[in-house]
């Protein structure tokens, strides 16, 4: 940062350049590694085990219409998986000529083990309502988009898990976009008491079209490299459109392969 102030004091506007690191923040959550998945499952299991049993008498007090409805629904359903699991142990299965169900911990099942709520089965009871619900069923979009399958790097709706960064081809190399401005534009900024980051956003809009909705993160530059101040900004909507300039939207892992190794080494710590 000391370098920046010295530069500005000497008012060397000629060599000054503005760079912009434009990113799109991730849209969906990251896919979990198998270890993380098991960790969360273990914790959820702990949480469930510590929870209290369903307090039936509290929600369905005896002698009410609600309990009548509730008890009608409670038909003991045979859990075939569990039956098969204990099938070899004949003693357990055929005790006093009656089938006995066992829960996961191997004990005889009580009322708490098979509770069916009225609201869950309502759909099965009324066929009409079940048909309606199937129409309104929520289906999730896939985490892999069309651009991912086609490997179209110029589009924004790809690799939704990661941050995407805009890079541009200049002089045969893939770099973050940099801009040269006239001296008057710098001097006008000083007169208006505005910061350089607003200029970087304006420059990006001139390059990629007005339909991009941009937001510059802060007025402090995040990097100073070869007379260029790099500013970070975020794209919320719109697309980068310019036929004359080659561009790509890449995440951190893909940038490593495309960029110059020296250039990437300088920029690596700025990327997520």
């Amino acid at each position, binding site marked *: *940062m000391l370098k920046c*102030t010295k530069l500005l004091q000497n008012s060397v506007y000629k060599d000054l350049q503005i760079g912009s690191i434009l990113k799109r*923040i*991730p849209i969906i*959550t*990251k896919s*979990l590694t198998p270890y*993380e998945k098991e*960790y*969360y499952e273990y*914790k*959820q299991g*702990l*949480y469930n085990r*510590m929870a209290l049993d369903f307090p039936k008498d509290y929600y369905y007090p005896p002698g009410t219409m609600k309990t009548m409805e509730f008890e009608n629904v409670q038909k003991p359903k045979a859990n075939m998986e569990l039956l098969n699991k204990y099938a070899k142990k004949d003693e357990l299965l055929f005790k006093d000529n009656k089938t006995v169900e066992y829960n996961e911990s191997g004990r005889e099942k009580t009322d708490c083990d098979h509770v069916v709520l009225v609201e869950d089965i309502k759909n099965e009871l009324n066929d009409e309502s079940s048909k309606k619900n199937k129409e309104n069923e929520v289906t999730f979009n896939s985490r892999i988009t069309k651009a991912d399958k086609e490997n179209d790097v110029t589009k924004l709706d790809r690799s939704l898990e990661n*941050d995407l960064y805009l890079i541009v081809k200049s002089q045969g190399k893939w770099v973050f976009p940099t801009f040269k401005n006239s001296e008057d534009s710098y001097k006008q900024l000083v007169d208006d008491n505005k910061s350089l980051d607003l200029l970087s956003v304006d420059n990006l809009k001139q390059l990629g079209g007005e339909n991009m909705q941009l937001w510059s*993160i*802060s007025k*402090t530059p*995040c990097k100073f490299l070869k007379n260029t101040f790099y500013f*970070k900004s975020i794209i919320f909507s719109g697309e980068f459109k310019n036929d004359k300039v080659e561009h790509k939207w890449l995440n951190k892992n893909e940038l490593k392969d495309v960029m110059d190794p020296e250039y990437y080494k300088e920029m690596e710590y700025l990327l*997520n």
Partner: protein
Amino acid sequence: MNFSVRISKRQFSQAGKLCKGTYSIVNPTHHIERYGKRVLMESADSSKTHSNDIKAKCYIPLDVRQDRLTEHYYNSVQSDMLLMAYDHSETFTPGPIYREIDNLSNPYLINKTKSTIFGKTGLFLDRYPITPKNIPELLNVEVSCMAKDVNVNKYKYITAKALIQQITNVKPNNIVVTESDHNMFLRVGSILGGKADLFGYDKSQFLLTLNELIFPKDEYFNGIPEHLADPKGHITLELSAEQVSFFPEIMSDKDLWDSLLGMTVKINTTAQDPAYTKMLLSGLGFPFRAEGPLEEPARV
């Protein structure tokens, strides 16, 4: 053999024993510390462990599921805030002036608590320049709900507690009257409502529903007023009874509730400045509006 004696024998008066028996002022001073013998029992080991430890009695697993809000914070908000809060000329600005008193040097102040000597704690905190170790973070969310007309029907607090439990998935503690009020017909010990501290997954789930479902449904919501951020890094929001009814847990079975109540939500952060708390929460997606100036007292 040195036995720990409960009451110093070098006291001349009887009253001295009752008031401050464990300290002797006359040289040589032997400060005898009192301790509860129960702590040494083996059965107390579980209560000594940290509440986040699985051996602790009060242990509840907090990281039960993948958390959207904290993931967003660590991925993008944290690094952006480091840039945004950077100030080239910023140095350490002290908060309240502490009069540091060596308690042992003055015999009259020996058993006094901190508050009686120091007076009120300061209006704002010490502010350090923000570094990677120092970036503001969410701590916890305190949700509290008070019932109306407790003096008429003392069981009204149950609805207030049930509301919190239904919404936040955490069992609330009681809010109890500590000072009696004759005008309001309140006795000491009567229960007014409930409060719950939210951590981990429950915390972020509550904040997300608040931000993404409740505020957009409210017709008259223009954004959180900026001046609600106080100088110690907290934001307190007042939810009206109508806003509480928008929670999906209550919306699904509205006839169950005979009367709905308002709530206060206090969001605690590690920020040292109201501007930083606002910065953090707007990074997490909360909309703000400017109504009055931020409450920032003059620096010392």
